[in-house]
């Protein structure tokens, strides 16, 4: 190119006033009329004529020309005197015709009859997230993404089109119907399961005021979002049936970036930012706290004293220095965390071979004191090669990452901010823990123990993920291709959790102990396929036949060691006198045959047929195999001449219908065999066997029948594209961990239940280019999902263990409890409505199969949810604002506060509890504070089962705000830089909500809500 410029330059006579002429073509060599040609930094501009020719006068010797057009990618060109320029602009691909990755192939939105949404790398990159799942939030109709916490590396729950399966675990915790995750054709070995075995800040669970049942370490944190080209979400039967037994809960396909034909290009991206906690409910200061405590004693008719363990014992009022004030929330959760991210990629190639090599580093620190961080380093490679005759192609891609997350192994640290505000110092100047103050033990407060001890509890998890995928294609005959996809994925976790002796109260028999865990999940898959594609004059069709063999091994070990003589040895197993070890082996095998026929007539009528026969090792003899399939049809009605001629504004119209059966084998392995395991302890020298499960030899597939009708329309040359979908999924032959009462010896058994759960709803999305004038553009996209979940049949519900959990005709997330009736103005206690509508302080719990005073309090399903994205661009500036919203009912802060302990006892409270009942006749919503296990305590216990702990948890959140500026090309020329972009990204900048609590999304008062962050970044393309 440079030589060309030089050569042109030599031909041009040099004089003061010159004329630029040229012609603009598209990549098909057709002339482009109406292209704007602008001399940068001036107002000199023109447009091309019908033949694509333009002409400009200029008084300088050099200039930068900018070519822009609605249909083409913009181009900048450095001009230094050449004439008769030949410019080729690349035509923009209509978004309807962009390639979408689907099961075993690709398609376009235009011709797809299934429900498929693609999120491209541009959308992911702008959000600056560490976990790729997070980038999907609010972007895809029918997809609910919920972070479990703001802790770096913590897991994110994913659900496509609602809950299909009955609860297995305790009343309010549903087993998540995770979709199937596939990366470059290889099922991701850990899927979206938590990869930790041990507890940490990311996994507090639900005991003691915590409300985080799904918390854990996310395996997706091991995938660098910068390596992802696109994420496709498949939802309906047409798109998922070919995954058979694993497609019932939807499928998410992740495709990594590939090299492109052209000059070798290097991209560098560096980002640095800060992260902190947003507004949370303020806690009482010392003065407010002491007032509340005195009020509590007054309510109880007691005088605080200093007699240890007396009911009126109150060291916080009488022994501690009551002029002291520590804002514990600031101390524990108020630090600023940092994010550092750097990625580099080099890619390029020629006609036959393309490559891309990428690497990335990311580090997120915690908002807690202490050296806690989640760090990741990743590598990726991809290679495409085709033979000279194009008959043979090879695609190879692989990713490797190492992620280390170290924090505290004590989730109690999350609740440490509820320590009394006048609590004495807990650490001496050398950092040693202090366990008593003037003879008062400092380990019995609301936080349970000296919370600085929790900072010394060690925890780390190191995850190594290796994914390799190889696709071989050989064209046997014209139209007939033999293809084999081979994949291997191994995910190794190494986990460590330790409690050093110096983190324990010397009074409590301290034993230094450590746990060493490993988990290795390895999967390989082989999928040979034959595909035949043919065309006739009016139609085109393809036939695909293939098979799958997959094996997955999950091996875990857990070595627990204790009794270290010195804390310095705690990192080693051999330093401990006592150790015991556990291991576990799971093997999962899966085999299938599948086929697909796609037929397209006149580019107007499309029929799709999918079929699959699946075998899974999770089922016993003669139950292994199941059949699945779907039929889909589409009609591009805008192609009909009667519409084409009469409705000119309609540029695209498609009506599609699909119906099919998919399934689920999502239960643990070996549930059909009665198993005994050897014990790890011995009795008087003899080892034992213990039963491991209640078994069920009749287990078989859960089946989901999916029906969907969709309408897509494009207006004004597809500037506005609308998509509307109605879906109805019915899951029967429910495969559940059927809850059992403890008297059976186990908490559950896996069973197929004859219950049918229905998810139906509307998904609407609208994409529009609202303004496109000259250099300014405004694009918007909006999506909303209105789901409805319903239990439509359950024979024998009344006598089953679900009798008091579910109501026929209601959602699976139905909440049953007492209807809250405010505080009794006379006694100051919480009251409820009983079944007959009377107000009572002592309502009756369900018993003997009857709900008694429990009533339906609604459900926690989202009523609607979605996202709203706006992008504005002007010259080199681009501003993106992504909003997400959700309407829902959720647990409020009172649930956490009242399940943790009784307000009025020795722990700090949110300021909001100042409005508690104080004098007879007073009307309040918060009962009297109390220090005793008496009437107020019982009332509070009932309260946690009432409508009083539920409130609206709807929100609108500005999830991403990103401003970027691309430095104009003319400043970069001398630097050998192709492009340079500076950007500022903010996450979770504001949330509009009426939620009573810290965060409507995570709903955990004693937890870390999703954090705010701001970062500044630089992207350079060489």
């Amino acid at each position, binding site marked *: 190119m440079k030589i060309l410029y030089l050569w042109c330059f030599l031909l041009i006579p040099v004089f003061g006033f010159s004329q630029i002429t040229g012609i603009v073509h598209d990549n098909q060599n057709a002339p482009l009329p109406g292209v704007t040609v602008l001399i940068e930094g001036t107002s000199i501009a023109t447009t091309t004529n019908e033949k694509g020719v333009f002409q400009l006068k200029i008084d300088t010797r050099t200039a930068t020309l900018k070519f822009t057009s609605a249909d083409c990618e913009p181009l900048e060109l450095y001009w230094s005197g050449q004439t008769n320029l030949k410019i080729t602009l690349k035509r923009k691909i209509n978004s309807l015709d962009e390639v979408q990755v689907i099961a075993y192939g690709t398609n376009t939105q235009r011709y797809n009859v299934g429900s498929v949404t693609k999120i491209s790398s541009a959308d992911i990159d702008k959000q600056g997230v560490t976990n790729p799942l997070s980038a999907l939030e609010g972007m895809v109709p029918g997809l609910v993404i919920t972070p479990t916490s703001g802790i770096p590396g913590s897991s994110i729950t994913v659900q496509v089109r609602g809950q299909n399966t009955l609860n297995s675990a305790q009343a309010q915790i549903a087993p998540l119907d995770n979709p199937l995750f596939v990366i470059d054709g290889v099922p991701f070995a850990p899927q979206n399961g938590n990869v930790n075995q041990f507890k940490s800040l990311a996994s507090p669970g639900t*005991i003691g005021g915590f409300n985080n049942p799904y918390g854990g370490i996310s395996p997706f944190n091991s995938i660098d979002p910068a390596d992802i080209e696109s994420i496709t979400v498949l939802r309906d039967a047409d798109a998922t049936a070919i995954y058979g037994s694993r497609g019932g809960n939807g499928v998410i396909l992740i495709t990594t970036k590939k090299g492109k034909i052209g000059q070798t290009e290097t991209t560098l991206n560096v980002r640095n930012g800060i992260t902190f906690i947003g507004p949370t409910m303020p806690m009482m200061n010392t003065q407010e706290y002491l007032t509340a405590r005195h009020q509590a004693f007054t309510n109880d008719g007691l005088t605080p004293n200093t007699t240890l*363990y007396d*009911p009126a014992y109150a060291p916080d009022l009488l022994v501690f220095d009551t002029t002291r004030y520590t804002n514990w929330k600031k101390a524990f959760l108020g630090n600023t965390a940092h994010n550092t991210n750097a990625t580099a990629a080099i890619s390029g190639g020629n006609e036959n071979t393309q490559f891309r090599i990428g690497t990335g580093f990311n580090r997120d620190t915690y908002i807690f004191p202490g050296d806690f961080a989640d760090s990741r380093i990743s590598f990726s490679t991809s290679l495409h090669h085709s033979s000279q005759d194009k008959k043979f192609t090879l695609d190879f891609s692989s990713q490797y990452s190492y992620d280390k997350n170290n924090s505290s192994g004590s989730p109690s640290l999350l609740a440490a901010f509820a320590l009394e505000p006048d609590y004495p110092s807990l650490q001496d100047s050398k950092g040693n823990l202090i366990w008593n103050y003037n*003879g008062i*033990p400092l*380990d019995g407060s*609301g936080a*349970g123990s000296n919370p600085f001890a929790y900072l010394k509890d060690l925890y780390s998890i190191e995850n190594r993920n290796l994914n390799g995928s190889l696709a071989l294609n050989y064209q046997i005959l014209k139209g007939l291709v033999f293809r084999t996809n081979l994949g291997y994925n191994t995910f190794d976790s190494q986990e460590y959790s330790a409690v050093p002796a110096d983190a324990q109260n*010397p*009074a409590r*028999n*301290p034993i230094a102990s450590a746990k060493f865990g490993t988990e290795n999940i390895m999967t390989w898959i082989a999928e040979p396929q*034959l595909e035949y594609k043919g065309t006739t004059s009016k139609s085109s069709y393809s036939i695909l*036949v293939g*098979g799958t063999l997959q094996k997955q091994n999950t091996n875990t070990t857990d070595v627990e060691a204790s009794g270290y003589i010195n804390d310095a040895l705690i990192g080693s197993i051999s330093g401990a*006198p006592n150790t015991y070890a556990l291991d576990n*082996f799971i093997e999962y095998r899966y*085999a*299938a*045959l599948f086929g697909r026929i796609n037929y397209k007539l006149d580019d107007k009528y499309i029929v799709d047929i999918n079929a699959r*026969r699946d*075998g899974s*090792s999770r089922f016993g003899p003669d139950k*292994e195999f199941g059949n699945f399939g779907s039929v889909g049809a589409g009609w591009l009605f805008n192609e009909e001449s009667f519409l084409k001629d009469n409705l000119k504004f309609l540029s695209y119209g498609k009506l599609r219908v699909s119906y099919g059966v998919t399934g689920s084998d999502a239960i643990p392995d*070996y549930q059909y065999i*009665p*198993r*005994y*395991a*050897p014990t790890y*302890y*011995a*009795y*008087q020298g*003899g*080892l*034992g*066997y*213990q039963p491991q499960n*209640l078994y069920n030899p009749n287990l078989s597939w859960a089946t989901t029948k999916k029906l969907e009708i969709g309408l897509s329309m494009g207006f004004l040359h597809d500037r506005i594209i609308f998509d509307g979908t109605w879906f109805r999924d019915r899951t029967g032959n429910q495969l559940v961990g059927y*809850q*059992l*009462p*403890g*008297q*059976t*010896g*186990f908490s559950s058994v896996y069973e197929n239940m004859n219950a049918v759960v229905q998810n139906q709803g509307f998904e609407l999305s609208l994409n529009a280019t609202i303004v496109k004038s000259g250099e300014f553009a405004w694009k918007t996209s909006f999506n909303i999902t209105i789901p409805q979940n319903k239990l439509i049949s359950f024979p024998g519900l009344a006598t089953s*263990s679900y*009798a008091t959990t579910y109501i026929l005709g209601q959602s699976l997330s139905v909440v049953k409890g007492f209807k809250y009736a405010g505080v009794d103005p006379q006694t100051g206690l919480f009251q409820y409505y009983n079944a007959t509508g009377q107000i009572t302080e002592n309502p009756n*719990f369900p*018993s*003997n*199969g009857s709900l008694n005073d429990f009533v339906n309090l609604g459900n926690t399903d989202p009523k609607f949810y979605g996202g709203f994205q706006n992008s504005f661009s002007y010259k080199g500036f681009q501003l993106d604002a992504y909003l997400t919203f959700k309407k829902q009912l959720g647990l409020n802060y009172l649930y956490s506060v009242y399940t943790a302990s009784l307000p009025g006892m*020795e722990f700090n409270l949110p300021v909001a509890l100042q409005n508690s009942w104080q004098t007879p006749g007073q009307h309040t919503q918060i009962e009297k504070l109390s220090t*005793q*296990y*008496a009437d107020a*305590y*019982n009332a509070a216990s009932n309260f946690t089962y009432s409508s009083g702990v539920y409130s609206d948890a709807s929100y609108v959140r500005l999830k991403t705000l990103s401003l970027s500026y691309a430095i104009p090309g003319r400043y970069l020329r001398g630097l050998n830089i192709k492009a340079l972009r500076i950007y500022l990204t903010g996450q979770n900048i504001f949330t509009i909500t009426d939620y009573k609590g810290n965060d409507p999304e995570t709903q955990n008062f004693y937890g870390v809500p999703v954090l705010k962050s701001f970062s500044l970044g630089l992207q350079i393309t060489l």
Partner: protein
Amino acid sequence: MMKKNILVILISLAAASFTSCKKFVQEPPPKNQLISSTVFADSVGASAALNGVYINLMQNYGFSFSNGGITAFTGLTGDELYESTFSPPDEELYNNAITISNADAQLLWTTAYQSIYLVNACIAGIENSTTISASAKKSMTSEALVIRSFLYFNLVNIYGDVPLIIGTDYTVNEKIGRSPVNIVYQQIIADLQAAQSGLLRSLNNNTRANYYAATALLAKVFLYTKQYSNAITQSDAILTSGNFSLEPDPNSVFMAASHETIWCFAPVIPNLATMEGYLFVPSSSGVIPPYLITNSLYGSFEDRDLRKLDWIGVDTVSNQLYPFPFKYKTGRVSGMPNENYVVLRLADIYLIEAEAKGNMNNITGALADLNVVRHRAGLQNLVMNSQSDLLTAVNSERQHEFFCEWGNRWYDVNRLNLAQSILEIEKHGWKSTADLFPIPQNEINLNPALKQNPGY
């Protein structure tokens, strides 16, 4: 034509690969586990399954039904213990304000029925085995029945009516409601009598359920169900067997070598002794113990009672005395623990017989038994004529001999209807319905046939 051929090829390829698929998805159990028919294929496997039951009884790292939980939790609900750490479930117990979701009550229930399932699975596995000899079947089943009886004995005394689970079929078990206490006792008595006939009358291992364990438990059950002459018969069988004698030094009673032990559980977690030793005894004398003996119990001992000196430890912190249960002296050990967790011991038999004789108005006989126990405690013999005085004396002796031991005090106070008179004064939150623990609400939710106890 060619297209047709391709289709034929594809279909036949598909069919051919299908047969191999079927084999591919059939897999053996994991390499660290066995299927149940393999376990019960011989008596070695079956006895390992029985070992599994004992291990289960002692394997929790923390209180469980069979390892300290009953002692600690009924000590709190009764007049024996209070705690110095802040644990809401324990505080609820101490204040007799147990909520229906109380974690301690749930823990007792769950761990008890887990053990019961393991026992039932052993009994069923042994019964269904075609390869184990009849005599081996009989002795192993008897051992299992004694363990199950012991679990049910404690369950009825904590919860009142309880579901009586004696099989392994979960489809049946999950729907069983609560059986009245007397029905459960009938089952216990029948099982123990069957066990007596299946076990050898010798004592070669007191860490396993043996003939005398069955007999001692039967004596206790007869006492609790007021079948006094039966209780005396069973007690006599033990007292006259010559296998047991009271340890002269109270400090030796809970040692592994104690001659007093009729039945005990051996600790299984390496380097940990009994859970009571581990969780009751503070690591040094300068710290406040987590569970403290109440003033009323501490003050009720006679001055020279050796049990007060030997079985209660006292730590002094800031000039204040903190007494704590000290029957088990060690929490952590290196090597084999020298203390076993004693389930039934000879002193109990003396006092069972004393109470039974007293109720049958045999005052002299009763005093003789009672004074054997007093003598060992370094106390003078009692002399009295009144039946009611005697019964009060026996109960007082039981309080001091069996404080913080398997819920004996809590059970005695309740079965003798003394709860109202004793606990009303001692516990400010006492109410008459607090004599039974609540059935965990979670269990009621999962089994519509379960009914809650009154007062919850």
